[in-house]
């Protein structure tokens, strides 16, 4: 080809490829592109940043907190605990051969726990001496866990008969495993459609299971009895997900982007703080580009109370949050931010 032909080909090709991708991009489905059919209570409260703490690394999760400290675990270093950015050396009675990224540490002073649902194994230790001991020997396989008391955990496991998620309580006393029949309601496949977060509030003694893909949170007592189903303010009653079975052994994955309703939850003073992924009809689309939206509900009666706009830091959305006294702590990729809850400025839009 002559040089002019090459230049002509390259420019036409670049133009066509760019145009094609641009068309795909502007026509793609966005979860907040159409009206979501609900409104938020206005004026919303916009929180101000009190402090940003760099963590010198990624993959952290909130393991627990006291009135003075926040404890962090790390998915890539499952056996290590941090307080703020200081590494605490946990000592285990045996060499732990297999460490999984799903292993979680949780802190409820004076104890620290390690829960591994694949082995399955539990350890419990004292925050003072950091010596971990085997604990809850008679357990079950599980996929997520929440500590209830020094002698019990609530977990989510897969029922081997129905292949659906269910909730269990694992305790030191007999019976060691208590099942809760049919608490998580299957909508599509029973695994992905019931996915969510399990959290325990030690002040009100309530467990909450927040679904990711439907507008519901289950409030349970410590024996996994359903107290109430709280509906979040959006209108997604049935999970908008599609599943593909990728092997004959039962492996499955999403075949379209899942439509998140609730991103994460934290519990404080009998209230649920839920980071919503959906924009209300009375809000400007720019709001969700600059803020994370946190709706507050009462656990006592399930009512929606108010909404916080939490300004994004470094254009990121936070993955987890917790409330320590008058601060809301939001965990991002490699840093966390403390926001002032008390002196939030009212913002009318």
């Amino acid at each position, binding site marked *: 080809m002559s040089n002019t032909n090459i230049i002509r080909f*390259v420019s036409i090709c670049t133009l066509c490829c*760019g145009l094609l991708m641009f068309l795909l991009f502007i026509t793609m489905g966005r979860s907040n592109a159409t009206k979501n059919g609900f409104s938020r209570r206005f004026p919303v409260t916009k929180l101000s940043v009190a402090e940003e703490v760099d963590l010198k690394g990624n993959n952290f999760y909130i393991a627990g907190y006291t009135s003075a400290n926040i404890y962090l675990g790390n998915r890539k270093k499952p056996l290590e605990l941090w307080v703020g950015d200081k590494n605490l050396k946990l000592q285990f009675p045996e060499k732990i051969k297999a460490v999984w990224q799903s292993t979680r540490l949780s802190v409820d002073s004076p104890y620290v726990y390690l829960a591994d649902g694949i082995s399955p194994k539990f350890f419990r230790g004292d925050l003072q001496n950091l010596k971990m001991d085997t604990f809850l020997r008679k357990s079950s396989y599980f996929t997520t866990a929440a500590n209830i008391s020094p002698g019990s955990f609530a977990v989510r496991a897969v029922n081997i008969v129905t292949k659906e998620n269910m909730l269990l309580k694992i305790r030191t006393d007999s019976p060691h495993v208590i099942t809760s029949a049919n608490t998580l309601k299957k909508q599509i496949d029973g695994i992905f459609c019931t996915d969510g977060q399990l959290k325990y509030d030690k002040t009100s003694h309530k467990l909450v299971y927040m679904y990711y893909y439907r507008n519901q949170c289950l409030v349970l007592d410590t024996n996994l009895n359903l107290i109430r189903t709280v509906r979040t303010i959006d209108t997604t009653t049935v999970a908008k997900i599609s599943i593909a079975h990728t*092997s004959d052994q039962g492996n499955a994955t999403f075949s379209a982007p899942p439509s998140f309703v609730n991103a994460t939850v934290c519990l404080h003073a009998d209230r649920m703080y839920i980071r919503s992924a959906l924009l209300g009809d009375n809000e400007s689309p720019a709001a969700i580009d600059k803020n994370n939206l946190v709706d507050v509900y009462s656990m006592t009666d399930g009512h929606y109370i108010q909404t916080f706009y939490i300004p994004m830091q470094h254009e990121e959305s936070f993955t987890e949050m917790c409330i320590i006294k008058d601060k809301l702590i939001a965990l991002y990729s490699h840093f966390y931010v403390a926001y002032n809850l008390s002196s939030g400025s009212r913002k009318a839009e």
Partner: protein
Amino acid sequence: MIKKWLVEIISLLFVLLFIYTAVYKIIDFRNFQAVIGQSPMITRFAPLVAIGVPIAEITISGLLVLPRYRIIGLCASFAIMLLFTFYIIILLNLNIHLPCSCGGIIAEMNWNQHLVFNIVFVILALIGISIYKR
């Protein structure tokens, strides 16, 4: 002479790349189709793209192998790599975290490494086109 060998090497690299990834996609076809469906840009066309991409890769390899059609193959390689590169650029800017579905060790790269990898191949194709002699 050097130019002739360079074109041979570039063509061979593309054939290896395309056949390798196409085979991976076909072996794990159900997974490939599901994973590309998770990209909001492709969801609607996932079944079409899932069949189209490996077929395109194998066809281009065929063109590169046949001396008569090698220049068409080089141009097509340039086009398809450019298309993938634009796709990655948009994905990176959208800040969506998706698994890569190229297949094999190429899927082990993160998106930034992937971008560099693709740009290198785009440039290779361009070199191939410009030094190709009938």
